[in-house]
């Protein structure tokens, strides 16, 4: 018997709670239950036996928490505990039931909520999977973070050929603790190619019913359900649903269809499984129809392509000087700002392209995708021409992304589509091949067809291929526009694919480009365009989409349109009150006024005069007020932010007139290894930026080597380190030591080239000196004073 055979049954009965049973047998709270696999295997075996007698067709080995992190002080290795657990279960199962290698969460949160990296999680899971190689199937259960679960599934797929069941734990608000929605889980996990998906633990069967219903809506594969025996009483730890009621509720859940694997979690016992088996006895399984359209998602948010969805195009260095500079300077915040403003403007999906010859695109792509997913909820479109960049980004992406792109060329089909399949993404298919872009709609349609067929052959659904029929510049090839739209229409109606288009290319070389773009977008929408790739900050383009959705009867009762425009504040022309001076605006946190005043001043004042005579003195005044206890810290920061806006205006002005922005010197900032509290460091960054220093921000949880490498590579003489916790001061000490001991960072006489300043809540001046820092800065203001002293 194997798992796929078992699935041919109407239903598959699973076992019930293990922890509950072990506690009954005298396991103490806080003890590691998996240690019993070695120290008292008979107790565990007896529980397995009872579940098999009750009717369980798959039993879970007692391996749920047996990972390297949780077992580190247990005195046993993962290999010892897991192989004993699987062996123990197998000896009882003896062909009467299958044995699942049961895998739970690692026990610490993965980035960005925690400090565990994707790769660390992967390694923990890999160790478990290799140790449990004798099991028949792998169960991931009680997972709350989709990215951690993805690491587990990849570890399973890459180190084993066993079937995989992936189950997460949802609260009554239909989300996991880390905010994962049911739709996101269902879409992502199916994409990764698991054999069943579902939900376990947290609530009783009645409370979980809506979660299961939602899974059924999205699921093409069997659904797995293991509820608790109701809700626990916090004091007695007993549960409020008995075996008969439990079974009755489960039988109702089975009616939803697609639900195939059923058992119990906390609080359930063999009695529950016996009743469950009885209740399902003469029931017939049915597969429910999936009602959802094709969709992509992040960990928290699903974007169903059931109506036009906007892909924001702004995260792309092409033709953008400041964006290019930001990439070179590793200025991730600049990119995050671009992302947040597009989302606020209404983007449903963000395209992410960070390709630039001067940088390591793969490293940057991974960094940017991680950073974006830590602040925005919309799904991403990974945009690169390099398969290794796509691979790296797809691996650590939380959810189901779009890959941009594949085309009709053999090489592209052969390298990109397997990645799309492996990571369960959707893909943009460009209708071009080695001969370029066909002139006619027929030619492009044929390429689209070829891409779809090749995708299908790999098991990628045509619904996950979004065809781009390519916009050509109408001023160069006027007949091209019609051909693009004709091809789009055919792809949509004949191939059943979703379609996308970059819109703004159409108007190159024409005056009043906005108008042309706007009309072209509307024409394309009417031909069936699903995914316009546009600049969402362009108010008219977004307006066209909102209006289209009303006219096409998508936006029912014009709800979204009215919400958007009814109370729309007519943007006031930038007018400045003549009473307000630049320094007043800075000191009072008036961003837009300050920006307008700076622009005005640039008309007749030298940029550096504005900086030295207006901005810096105003900042100094605010700094003084702060030191004297006249204003609060947030006010100091607010003023700094306003000044930052002024600097941006000046920088833009300088870059337009081809003057390189003036920098007073480079400074590395990093929150040390192991520490994830970086707010203090970020305050320092804002202030240093303002005083004209170029900050190379390495982020938080930074490896000492990364600090050293950056200092060498960019020839940086000043380094600021922060740590909030007493437990991470050691990392600060290590980082300083590594800087001091690195030959490349020493002068010929052996003295250090680098000046190191440190700060952070738990630090004191004495301690800072003891660990070898040059300066201790008690707050952000003092960091600026120190930078002035060192760099001038």
């Amino acid at each position: 018997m194997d798992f796929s055979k078992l699935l041919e049954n109407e239903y598959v009965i699973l076992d019930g709670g293990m922890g509950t049973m072990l506690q009954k047998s005298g396991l103490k709270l806080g003890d590691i239950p998996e240690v019993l696999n070695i120290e008292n295997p008979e107790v565990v075996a007896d529980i397995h036996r009872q579940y098999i007698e009750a009717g369980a067709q798959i039993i879970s080995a007692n391996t749920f928490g047996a990972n390297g992190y949780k077992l580190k002080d247990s005195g046993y290795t993962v290999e010892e505990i897991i192989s004993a657990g699987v062996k123990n279960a197998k000896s009882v199962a003896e062909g009467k039931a299958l044995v699942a290698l049961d895998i739970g969460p690692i026990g610490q949160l993965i980035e960005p909520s925690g400090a565990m990296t994707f790769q660390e999680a992967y390694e923990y899971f890999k160790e478990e999977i290799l140790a449990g190689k004798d099991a028949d199937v792998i169960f991931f259960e009680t997972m709350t973070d989709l990215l951690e679960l993805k690491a587990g599934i990849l570890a399973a797929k890459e180190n084993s050929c066993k079937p995989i069941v992936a189950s997460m734990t949802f609260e009554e608000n239909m989300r996991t603790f880390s905010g994962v929605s049911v739709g996101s889980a269902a879409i992502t996990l199916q994409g990764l190619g698991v054999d069943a998906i579902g939900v376990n633990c947290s609530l009783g069967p009645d409370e979980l019913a809506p979660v299961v219903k939602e899974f059924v809506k999205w699921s093409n594969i069997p659904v797995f359900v293991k509820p608790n025996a109701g809700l626990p009483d916090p004091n007695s730890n007993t549960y409020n649903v008995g075996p008969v009621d439990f079974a009755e509720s489960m039988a109702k859940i089975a009616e939803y269809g697609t639900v195939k694997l059923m058992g119990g979690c906390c609080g359930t016992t063999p009695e529950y499984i016996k009743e469950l088996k009885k209740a399902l006895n003469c029931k017939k399984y049915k597969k429910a129809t999936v009602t959802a359209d094709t969709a992509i998602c992040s960990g928290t948010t699903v974007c169903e392509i059931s109506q036009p969805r906007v892909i924001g195009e702004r995260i792309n260095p092409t033709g953008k000087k400041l964006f290019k500079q930001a990439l070179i300077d590793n200025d991730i915040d600049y990119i995050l700002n671009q992302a947040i403003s597009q989302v606020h403007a209404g983007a449903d999906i963000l395209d992410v392209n960070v390709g630039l010859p001067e940088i390591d695109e793969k490293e940057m792509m991974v960094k940017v995708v991680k950073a974006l997913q830590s602040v925005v909820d919309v799904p991403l479109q990974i945009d690169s021409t390099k398969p290794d960049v796509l691979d790296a980004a797809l691996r650590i992406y939380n959810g189901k992304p779009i890959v941009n792109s594949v085309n009709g060329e053999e090489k592209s089909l052969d390298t990109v589509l397997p990645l799309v399949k492996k990571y369960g993404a959707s893909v943009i298919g460009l209708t071009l091949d080695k001969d370029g872009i066909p002139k006619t709609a027929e030619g492009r349609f044929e390429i689209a067809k070829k891409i779809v067929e090749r995708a299908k052959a790999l098991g990628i659904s045509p619904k996950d291929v979004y065809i781009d029929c390519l916009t050509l510049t109408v001023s160069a090839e006027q007949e091209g526009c019609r051909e693009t739209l004709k091809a789009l229409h055919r792809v949509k109606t004949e191939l059943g694919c979703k379609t996308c288009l970059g819109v703004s290319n159409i108007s190159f070389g024409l005056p009043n480009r906005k108008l042309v773009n706007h009309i072209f977008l509307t024409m394309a929408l009417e031909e069936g365009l699903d995914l316009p790739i546009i600049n969402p900050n362009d108010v008219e383009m977004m307006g066209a989409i909102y209006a289209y959705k009303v006219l096409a009867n998508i936006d029912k009762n014009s709800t979204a349109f009215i919400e958007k425009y009814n109370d729309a504040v007519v943007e006031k022309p930038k007018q400045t009150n003549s009473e307000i001076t630049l320094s007043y605006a800075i000191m009072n946190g008036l961003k837009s006024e300050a920006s307008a005043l700076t622009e005005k001043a640039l008309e007749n004042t030298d940029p550096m005069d504005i900086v030295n005579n207006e901005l810096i003195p105003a900042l100094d005044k605010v700094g003084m007020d702060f030191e004297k206890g006249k204003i609060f810290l947030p006010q100091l920061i607010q003023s700094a932010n306003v000044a930052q806006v002024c600097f941006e205006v000046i920088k833009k002005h300088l870059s337009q007139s081809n003057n390189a922005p003036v920098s007073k010197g480079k400074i590395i900032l990093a929150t040390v290894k192991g520490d994830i509290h970086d707010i203090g460091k970020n305050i320092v960054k804002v202030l240093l930026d303002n005083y004209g220093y170029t900050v190379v921000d390495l982020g938080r949880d930074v490896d000492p080597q990364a600090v050293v490498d950056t200092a060498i590579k960019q020839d940086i003489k000043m380094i600021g380190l922060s740590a909030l916790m007493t437990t991470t001061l050691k990392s600060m000490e290590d980082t300083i030591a590594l800087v001091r001991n690195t030959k490349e960072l020493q002068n010929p006489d052996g003295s250090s080239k680098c000046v190191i300043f440190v700060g952070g809540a738990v630090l004191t001046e004495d301690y800072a000196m003891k660990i070898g820092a040059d300066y201790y800065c008690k707050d952000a203001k003092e960091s600026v004073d120190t930078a002035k002293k060192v760099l001038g």
Partner: protein
Amino acid sequence: MIALNKIDREEAVRYLGNSGVEMNSTMEGILDICEEKILATAKPKYLYKTVALENSGLLVGNSISNHLENCQNAVILCATLGADIDKLIRTAQITDMAQAVVIDSMSSVAVEQICNKVEELIIAENPTLFTTWRFSPGYGDYPIELQSDFLRILDAPRKIGLCTNNNSILTPTKSVTAIIGLSETPIEQKRRGCQSCNLAKTCKFRKAGNHCGF
């Protein structure tokens, strides 16, 4: 279920290290916006459990032994505002740093307020017993590493999604673990002072050799 409906502003300002600065309308405005955001985002969760202290492995160091003198049992507790607050703080750091620092300090206050309410529940559930004030790993010489034991006993990772990392940092970050002693005889109220303050190790006043007078 414990709800959060108001955040102690005076305390938040103290956490910012700005005690003594006179309130002004700009700061009031920032506080209003941030409070609203936190109340809309926080998903407070907590757990507590009574444990016998003998052989529990929980009495490590002098501070806690002193604190729990004459207590046979104790209640260990944990509370968190959830992971969304961390995301709120991260995002604010990109869009508005001034708000970010206020949200940061107000959230720290908010999770303490949740703990205050949990403490009230514990006192109400033990009407015949005397309780100590709550003491957290990291106070005095009580090892911060014990946080992971607290969480394991409470089954906190599974039940409320609260974990620690390798450096004993709680994640989500706006979280607390603590212990409250239960005694059958009245407890000599030990001086609360700086030792029990969350800011004891980070306090600007203490670094300067003073105290805030709290």
